């Protein structure tokens, strides 16, 4: 049977891609951020997951507000990045996992999550930056990725309790997949930040650290927040915490924190890197 063996939270901001493209990892500004990553890379290289389920939000590459799905997922064999408006260099395609994707879609729609199912889906920095952080030099082609995209842009948005339940449904779907494969889930984005308005630049370090603590041991507490609470506590774009909450929902076993590196600011954001292991109770 398929197993979710662990999960990672990570930032996905475009400035990281620029820093990596320009070799700035060892500069004083970036070093405290990048220094957090080797233990997570080592863990991934040791565990060699077959599939990554990656929660992110599209920032206006694939989806526009002409039609804005609350939840969307890819079921393709391959995904492409494209120009997001800054003329960034095109990067190698991301490998998909169609069979498990359809299995998840079948299972969660039957449970009541009316997912938009995409056979073509351009993936933006929200998805590609985390992959390149884990496998630098865009060496992520060997791992199969299932993109799950949550609307974090236009209200109404799914509330934290709902994104947590989405995660749980995906966790159950994976557990019912017959092939013996290992899955790792990425929750990307956040944490506290605000890009727009006179309140731009807002960061709440204490809130971020409390959220990371709760993601480990008391995720239900996070589901008590509304999106408006997240905006109040963490800034307008802290609604991206929904990706981390959804990730945590997928972990149905015993969860252990293996690594953490919180650093702020990176660009305008608080960055929370965390590695969690998920141990499922033995069957029988």
């Amino acid at each position: 049977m398929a197993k979710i063996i662990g999960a990672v939270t990570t930032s996905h901001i475009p400035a990281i891609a620029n820093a990596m493209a320009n070799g700035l990892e060892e500069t004083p500004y970036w070093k405290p951020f990048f220094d957090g990553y080797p233990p997570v890379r080592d863990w991934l290289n040791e565990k060699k997951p077959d599939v990554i389920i990656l929660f992110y939000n599209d920032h206006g590459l694939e989806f526009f507000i002409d039609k804005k799905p609350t939840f969307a997922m890819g079921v393709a064999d391959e995904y492409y990045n494209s120009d997001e408006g800054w003329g960034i260099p095109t990067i190698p395609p991301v490998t998909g996992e169609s069979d498990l994707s359809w299995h998840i879609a079948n299972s969660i729609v039957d449970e009541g999550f009316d997912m938009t199912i995409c056979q073509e889906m351009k993936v933006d920095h929200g998805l590609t930056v985390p992959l390149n952080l884990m496998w630098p030099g865009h060496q992520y082609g060997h791992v199969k990725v299932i993109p799950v995209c949550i609307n974090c842009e236009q209200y109404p948005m799914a509330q934290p309790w709902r994104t947590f339940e989405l995660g749980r449904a995906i966790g159950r779907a994976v557990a019912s997949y017959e092939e013996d494969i290992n899955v790792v889930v990425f929750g990307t984005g956040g944490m506290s930040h605000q890009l727009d308005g006179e309140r731009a630049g807002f960061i709440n370090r204490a809130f971020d650290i409390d959220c990371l603590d709760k993601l480990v041991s008391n995720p239900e507490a996070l589901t008590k927040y509304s999106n408006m609470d997240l905006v109040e506590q963490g800034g307008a774009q802290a609604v991206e915490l929904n990706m981390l909450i959804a990730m945590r929902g997928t972990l149905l076993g015993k969860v252990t924190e293996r690594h953490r590196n919180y650093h702020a600011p990176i660009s305008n954001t608080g960055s929370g890197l965390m590695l969690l292991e998920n141990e499922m109770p033995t069957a029988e």
Partner: protein
Amino acid sequence: MASNYTDRKFQGTYLFDGQMAKKGYGLNKMCYSFNDQIARDAFNADPEAYCEKFKLTEAQKEAIRNKDVIGLLREGGSIYYLAKFTGLLKLNMQDIGGLQTGMSTDEFKAMLERNGRGEV
């Protein structure tokens, strides 16, 4: 008229709800088009004509002319699409932060550092 999503308000924050999405539709559609180099070139060649093509209101055109990010937010711009407009102007998120808060880019970065350390 689209109704507001919530009656909660946060100072200096423009929640992008149905009312704003309706008001800003043409503006955001124009900014979304900037994903393509051809569109960026067309805007740069004749900004007024390009704004007209997307039926921007006078207030939106004025805010585009003045690179007035707060004005664009008030007129229904979503920051994710506005970022494509400001990217076209070669402004990064700290430049935009400075513009919105009345600080220089360096002052804004210094505020981020203080906020990041939890000093606020």
